[in-house]
């Protein structure tokens, strides 16, 4: 009953015999430029936080999304404003990238402002959750971002719930959850996907397969060549995307989104990528205990910024000169400087950071508030 594929041919993926056409065929040159900017934004957010953290200005753990940005950017790009998302620890940029198309500074867009996200990172009262829980455990009912706990895969059931409610209310939205490949071993992953399949709920499960779950390699996590094949066991489609290529991610995710939006139910999109740094910043110096250097070098070879630029050059959307103007790609967080990024990107983030730094801490007595809602 399920149409599944590991192939990059969308026609085959959709099980139709329509001429080969990809969702990305509809992207304009402006879309490509926007995607490139968003990749810069995600990258800059990450390296900026790495630096702020090194300077001791941040608490908590930073789970770098370096080298994995194409997954977030490509997945979020095709969503409608009213769609739900559920990002987890490695997805901090997703909070502001949601509905970014609606205009970076547009207060009505259905994503968080950079001020809100930075306030959360800095633990300030101006965070949407008033910094009661840390880092990625943020969300917004109004902006349709599900708040996660630390318990991995724990929001997939909530994603089924929010879409069910929308369906009952006559809204044709989807929910997109982001998950590391390791998280999929949790029982609740299975339970929720199974129920979504039964109920044909529009839940798109993005797997960021970065080859490692903390210190554990994939062959200790599951026994499949392509993780996407897990979908076969639920009778739902499973797609494989090149997680370094924002366009391939967009294509595969949009197939999943269209499948969901047309009432056919859930699916899984495996995006193959590689974790650039340690599991968290505390692990940067320890990751070589379990991860061979060659693998790291190999895994970081295809920087998503570089991959997109190459594509744009070959399509005539970008000149080599333009591409070289902001050479952030293929540089570690320690090497890259603000000059490697478009000024617009640096400005945007800097504004958020400065807002957060100046924002007030919540008052200590808030610790005892909101345990219950008083009616």
């Amino acid at each position, binding site marked *: 009953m399920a149409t599944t594929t590991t192939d990059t041919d969308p026609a085959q993926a959709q099980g139709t015999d329509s001429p080969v056409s990809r969702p990305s065929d509809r992207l304009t040159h402006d879309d490509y430029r926007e995607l490139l900017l968003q990749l810069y934004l995600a990258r800059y957010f990450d390296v900026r936080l790495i630096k702020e953290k090194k300077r001791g200005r941040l608490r908590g753990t930073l789970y770098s999304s370096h080298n994995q940005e194409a997954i977030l950017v490509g997945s979020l790009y095709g969503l409608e404003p009213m769609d739900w998302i559920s990002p987890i620890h490695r997805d901090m940029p997703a909070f502001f990238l949601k509905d970014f198309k609606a205009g970076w500074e547009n207060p009505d867009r259905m994503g968080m402002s950079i001020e809100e996200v930075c306030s959360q990172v800095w633990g300030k009262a101006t965070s*949407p959750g008033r910094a009661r829980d840390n880092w990625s455990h943020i969300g917004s009912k109004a902006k349709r971002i599900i708040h996660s706990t630390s*318990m991995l895969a724990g929001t997939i059931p909530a994603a089924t719930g929010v879409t069910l409610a929308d369906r*009952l209310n006559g809204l044709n939205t989807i929910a997109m959850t982001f998950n590391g490949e390791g998280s999929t071993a949790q029982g*609740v992953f299975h*339970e929720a996907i*199974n129920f979504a399949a039964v109920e044909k709920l529009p839940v798109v499960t993005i797997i960021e397969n970065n080859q490692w779950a903390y210190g554990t390699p994939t062959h200790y996590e599951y026994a499949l060549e392509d993780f996407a094949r897990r979908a076969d066991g639920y009778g739902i489609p499973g797609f494989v995307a090149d997680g370094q290529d924002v366009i391939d991610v967009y294509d595969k995710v949009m197939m999943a989104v269209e499948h969901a939006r047309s009432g056919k139910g859930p699916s899984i999109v495996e995006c193959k990528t590689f974790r650039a740094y340690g599991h968290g910043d505390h692990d940067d110096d320890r990751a070589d205990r379990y991860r061979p250097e060659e693998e790291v070098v190999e895994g970081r070879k295809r920087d998503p910024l570089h991959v997109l630029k190459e594509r744009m050059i070959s399509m005539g959307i970008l000149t080599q000169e333009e591409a070289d103007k902001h050479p952030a790609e293929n540089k570690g967080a320690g090497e890259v400087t603000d000059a490697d990024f478009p000024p617009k990107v640096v400005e945007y983030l800097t504004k958020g950071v400065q807002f957060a730094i100046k924002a007030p801490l919540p008052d200590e007595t808030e610790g005892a508030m*909101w345990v219950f809602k008083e009616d």
Partner: protein
Amino acid sequence: MAATAVGTEKKNYLTALKEAIAEEMARNPHMICMGEDIGALGGAFGVTDGLIAEYGRERVYDMPISEATIVGTACGLCLNGKTVMVEMQFIDFISCGFDQIVNMTATYHYRTAGDVSMPMVIRGPAGAYGGGALYHSQMNEAWFANSPGLKIVCPSTVYDAKGLMKAALRDPNPVIFYEIKDLYRRREIEEVLPEEDYIVPLGKARVAREGDAITIVSYGQNVYHCLKAAENLESEGYQAEVIDIRSIVPLDEETIIESLKKTNRLLVVNEAPMTCGFAGEILSRMTEKAFEYLDAPPMRITRMDTPVPWVKPLELYVLPSVEKITAGALKLIKY
């Protein structure tokens, strides 16, 4: 089909719960029911009988055997504006959805500084004394009492069953609702219910019997054991006051303290395991807050710290009984 109380007919505990849920479904178009076999079957005990016929799968979901995802889906529904009644086929199976309750649902309002509330009732048949053995007899309310953000309720009368269920379904917070399955169809406790809509507010205890010799505090099925023990005590010349707390979280401390002012003796009875059970919590709060009124060491009679064994003599051996309560109360009175 929402049942309208006839006003003269006596009803049982099960019917009271059923009516409460049906009336709330009729009243609140955003209310959804989820659980295993709650549709065509009407649930293992029939509490949701008739709902699927009335509302269909739009609002009544026969769910896969996935307690974690049932709770988690309910959580998503609440996040998106719905009110959800979740049935655990037996409250014992709540352990399979534990993380989604204590970490995801209970804390949602707290984590979001009040932005998101969780109007969810997780209810199910509970309690021992029926030969249900280890996994169909539990009273596991203490796990949730130690998990901030959850309200917890356990009615012992037919009137309270209906009124508390309605209050729980209107509460904006997640409520764990313990239904005593041994009372579902107990004839002796049947009651005529008011015809009009009513609720029993969460957090208000009920004085089930007045007295001045000792305060016996309990909830659920044990209330009846306490009342029988009180009769025994009466025949020995002592009037015991029996308080049915009804709400575990929040707890009505005032009613207990008021009682202790006149009786000066406290006995708490609870069929859950002793250690870190709610009986101990009541003892602690009263020694902290009513120490000056206590003329004897407060006492609790609980299940021993054992699971609930299957075979009757073993089961009764580890549980509170009328005899144990009578003996304990006498010891306290004569202290």
